């Protein structure tokens, strides 16, 4: 194994490899940046270019694009509040408010550093897991996914803002949105109003672009002031960004936990960076004593999702390399590319093409570092966007976002749905209904429902199946404890107070 790692290193240090790494990475970053395009888009476009290359170089290009794209997506998420791709959505919740307070540079610094370190974490885990990859993937199935989704939804409790009822409405709206379409687990078409285009549900792109981009645009247009406020000037952007760079180190334990969450979730086929980012955000909120700043610009709300979504890339490659079963869209494309190059993923690949596996791991690490460096260098200029008047910003964001929503299926229908989602998002804002629970419920709602029914199908109609799934039960316990803890700890505190008062009385 060491020999293969060394030859991989030699390959990566070659001049043309470095060129491909940088080229693929920059391209991936750009695709991640533009709302509506994503790392997968970059891979799709790059695959034909890699046909003539040898497998090592082909895959270092593709993996580099994949790794760098998440960093690109975080930039737009923070600066204009529009996630460049789905997995950067959670970064908006606290990244954008920081931008609105004029702290965009610090947020970008934190995101870049978290992404780099998180990406390295994920790649290292991938490397360590090579001998036991297969067993790890097999640990998770529908009962575990169900518990993960429940845990994720439980997080919403802390994100409801001022009024609990508003938070509940947000959750219900998100769940409703997730129910639209044909349910492949139990059959049945819901809320499609007869349209074939809604068969697959309201597309995630429409929800994200609509809720974030379009509703922000509406807000900007109506208010008429720049993102960072009417008299914002960005001073010392570079210095502030350096402060941000140290953020994951300052909150090291949180960073490690969120990277771990991302890597594990990324390993689960069918669930991806998006869920990893949301769960990490939720964990960041739940695990902090002072939750008051979340949603208003707490830097931990940037560290969490950004370390998680980058580490999930490493995780997503585990089922791909172990079984040839892709963890998500980007890895599905890589699977196709592997087949085109005549390589069958699985135990065979780990035996015969181990050098290539190391090249891919190395590319993942290097592309994360490179993309973060680029982000850091570009940040001082990029953050000035927050001072641009909406007259210029609104048309640009709007047209890029709508074109992005069109780009998925080349259908105007998707654009219309996006606009409707945008209007819905704006209405929710005006009524003080928080967006985070809507988006979380939308994503986790369908996972939860499908996993629930699949669990029952596996158990042939009975719930007994849960009792044979230690991981699922553990997750359920963790969720229950995290939910109950605030009540339990304050009850304990009260008892201690009462005891000490009575003790004092007795001792006096």
């Amino acid at each position: 194994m060491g020999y293969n790692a060394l030859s991989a290193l030699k390959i990566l240090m070659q001049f043309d490899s470095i060129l491909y790494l940088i080229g693929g990475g920059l391209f991936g970053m750009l695709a991640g940046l533009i709302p509506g395009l994503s790392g997968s888009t970059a891979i799709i476009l790059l695959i034909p270019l890699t046909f003539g290359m040898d497998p090592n170089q082909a895959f270092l290009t593709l993996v580099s694009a994949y790794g760098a794209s998440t960093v690109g997506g975080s930039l737009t998420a923070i600066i204009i509040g529009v996630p460049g791709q789905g997995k950067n959505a959670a970064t908006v919740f606290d990244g954008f408010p920081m931008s609105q307070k004029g702290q965009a540079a610090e947020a970008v610094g934190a995101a870049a550093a978290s992404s780099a370190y998180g990406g390295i974490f994920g790649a290292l885990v991938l490397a360590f897991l090579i001998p036991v990859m297969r067993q790890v993937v097999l640990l998770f199935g529908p009962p575990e996914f169900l518990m993960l989704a429940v845990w994720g939804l439980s997080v919403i409790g802390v994100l409801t803002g001022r009024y609990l009822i508003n938070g509940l409405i947000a959750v219900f709206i998100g769940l409703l949105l997730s129910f639209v379409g044909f349910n492949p687990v139990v059959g049945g078409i819901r809320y499609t109003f007869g349209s074939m285009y809604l068969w697959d549900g309201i597309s995630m792109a429409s929800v994200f672009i609509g809720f974030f981009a379009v509703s922000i645009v509406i807000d900007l247009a109506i208010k008429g002031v720049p993102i960072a406020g009417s008299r914002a000037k960005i001073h010392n952007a570079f210095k502030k960004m350096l402060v941000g760079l140290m953020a994951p180190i300052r909150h090291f334990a949180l960073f490690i936990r969120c990277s771990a969450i991302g890597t594990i979730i990324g390993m689960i086929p069918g669930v991806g960076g998006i869920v990893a980012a949301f769960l990490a955000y939720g964990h960041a909120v739940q695990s902090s004593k002072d939750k008051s700043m979340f949603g208003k610009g707490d830097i931990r709300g940037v560290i969490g999702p950004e370390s998680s979504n980058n580490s999930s890339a490493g995780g997503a490659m585990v089922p791909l390399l172990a079984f040839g079963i892709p963890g998500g869209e980007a890895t599905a494309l890589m699977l196709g590319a592997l087949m085109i190059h005549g390589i069958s993923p699985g135990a065979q690949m780990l035996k015969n093409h181990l050098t290539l596996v190391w090249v891919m791991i190395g590319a993942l690490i290097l592309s994360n570092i490179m993309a973060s460096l680029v982000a850091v260098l570009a940040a001082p200029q990029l953050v000035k966007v927050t001072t641009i008047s909406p007259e210029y910003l609104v048309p640009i964001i709007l047209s890029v976002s709508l074109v992005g929503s069109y780009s998925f299926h080349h259908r105007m229908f998707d654009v219309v749905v996006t606009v409707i989602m945008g209007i819905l998002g704006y209405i929710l804002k005006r009524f003080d209904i928080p967006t985070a629970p809507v988006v979380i419920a939308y994503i986790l709602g369908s996972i939860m429902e499908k996993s629930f029914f699949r669990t029952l199908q596996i158990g042939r109609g009975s719930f007994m199946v849960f009792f044979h799934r230690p991981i699922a039960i553990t997750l359920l316990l963790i969720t229950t404890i995290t939910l109950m803890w605030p009540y339990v700890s304050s009850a304990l505190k009260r008892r201690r107070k009462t005891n000490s008062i009575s003790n004092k009385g007795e001792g006096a």
Partner: protein
Amino acid sequence: MKKREIFNLSYLVFTVFLIFVLFSIPVFSQTEKNSEAYKDNDTITLIVPFSPGGGYDTLARLIQPFFQDEIRELSGAKVNLIVENVTGAGGVIGYSTMFRAKPDGKTIGMVGLQGAPFQQMGTDEFDLREFTHIGQANIETAGLMVSAESDLNDMQDLIDRSKQMPILFATSGVGAAEHIRTILAQAILAENGIELNADFVHYDGTGEAMIAILKGDAEAMISSAGTPFDLVNDGELKVISIFDPIREQRYPDTKAITEENIPGGDQIADQIFGNIRIIVAPPDTPEPIALILREALVKTLNKPEVQEMARNMKVALQHASAEEVAGKVDRLLSLVDRYSDIIMPLYTK
């Protein structure tokens, strides 16, 4: 809202309106009429109804450059063939798009006959009989897979075990090909007096379904024979029956279902298959164009480079002519008709 806000809002609405108008211009622009089949710089779009990276997409991109060259040679025009993924509704959106496209030779598509006849009956968005058929590109038999550790070693074992407890089949979704194959097998066996009891777990894709079998969450799946190949090689899964009269080369130790002399086995081998992928053009595509496309397809599939790449990617290429395809389509549609009372409920719940 304040006056200033309403003012700003109206500007916004105007901008959105403008963007929509700009998008619609291409729709209203005129197109020229062609006198020959193809002209230089014409773009032919090959619609793939599924996402990039999957079996259909890989096959399309594999043949694309060679198909393009053959069409150029036969038509004398420097045309461009591009692959476009039009996904959704399990392929129906792609099929519907191909069906409604202008029959000018600039749009063709790939259809999978393991699902399309059923989807046609269920959704009524296209008609396989009305397409202008170009030809078949690949065909694969169906195979029954189980975990390598399973006690089941052939179809008879499966049927026997199902009498004690229904076999838990994994599928890639309600109404997906694996689901339909199993229900059809059950129906055919039932007609011959054999009871196969089945329960189902529906996943979001064949990959997840295979992992389920590896984990033991599900017991079996009837898929395209090539699907589990890599995992069989790794020793994780085994294919215990091939739904064909002859054994499959890739699994020489696996019995063909006809060897087991199960009543209905011959019918299963005849009517249940893994996949059949065909190329179609919209209804009423002119003969000259159809002829060019048909001949180009045959030549493409016969090219040694194409066959070698297909072997490397484990894609089973096999050509059949437009007439043969039309025949298969008819047979499949009457099959769907015959079993419509067990199939239709899957789509119309």
